[in-house]
């Protein structure tokens, strides 16, 4: 097996995997999508929400914000608390609440992108008999994030794009049957910013290795 990196960006990588079977490439792809863990908001304690969004909608929007995850620092039992407090302006108008306003209990955990809009808070002004009142909107909540996997919910999926293309080599064109086991695949992986993309590919491969070792262990135990 040979690996050649063609393109490497901050959140995306393109590489050629040669001398592997398609089923191996597909297993790696599926591991990247569904098995690599990352942090995502799982529960929201809403203290106040007078915005236009329902509590459930607001919770889902928060859940889909990618959070920077250091895979070596967290276990499945760990929880990170993020608080958010925002209010619409004093006069008529609106404030957009962005992901950067989430205050985390762990300094290492923050939104991967700070400009993800969460909710728009609107202030409306009215005057009755010379008395001016401003109706303001407010949100105050605590969000609890935990490690999860893409197979549970898409919010724990660390990749946005993850696919491969089979590249037929010279040998395959001449003798397609003999060279069926020696294919090259071009992988295109794009992370959502929560886990560095190179770490993500390595982690997926490590998870595959762990699973294979478990099968071998189980089989040898049954044999003896």
């Amino acid at each position, binding site marked *: 097996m040979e690996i050649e990196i063609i393109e490497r960006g901050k959140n995306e990588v393109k590489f050629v995997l040669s001398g592997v079977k398609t089923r191996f490439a597909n297993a790696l792809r599926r591991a990247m999508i569904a098995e690599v863990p990352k942090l*995502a*908001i*799982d*529960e*929201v*304690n*809403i*203290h*106040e929400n007078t915005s236009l969004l329902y*509590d*459930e909608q*607001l*919770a*889902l929007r*928060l*859940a889909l914000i990618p959070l920077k995850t250091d895979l070596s620092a967290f276990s499945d039992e760990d929880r990170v608390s993020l608080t958010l407090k925002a209010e619409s302006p004093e006069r008529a108008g609106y404030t957009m609440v962005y992901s950067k306003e989430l205050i985390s209990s762990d300094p290492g955990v923050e939104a991967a992108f700070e400009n993800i809009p969460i909710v728009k808070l609107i202030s409306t002004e009215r005057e009755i*008999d010379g*008395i001016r*009142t401003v109706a303001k909107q407010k949100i105050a909540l605590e*969000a609890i994030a935990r490690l999860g996997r893409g197979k549970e*919910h898409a*919010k724990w999926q660390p990749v946005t794009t993850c696919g491969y293309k089979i590249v037929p080599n010279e040998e395959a064109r001449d003798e397609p049957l003999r060279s069926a086991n020696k294919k090259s695949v071009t992988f295109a992986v794009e992370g959502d910013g929560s886990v560095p993309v190179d770490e993500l590919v390595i982690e997926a491969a490590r998870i595959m290795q762990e699973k294979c070792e478990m099968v071998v262990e189980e089989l040898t135990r049954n044999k003896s």
Partner: protein
Amino acid sequence: MGYYCLRCKRIVEITTEYQGVRCPYCGYRALRKERPEVVVKKVKAE
């Protein structure tokens, strides 16, 4: 549970004898009833 003035934020007692509503401290006519503490709602984010 009393009312509070929207301008000076002070607690205002309402007397039924007095015609109309007005804050005795600042004269503002918009008062708001105090609400009890909001119960925290737990929502599953999915």
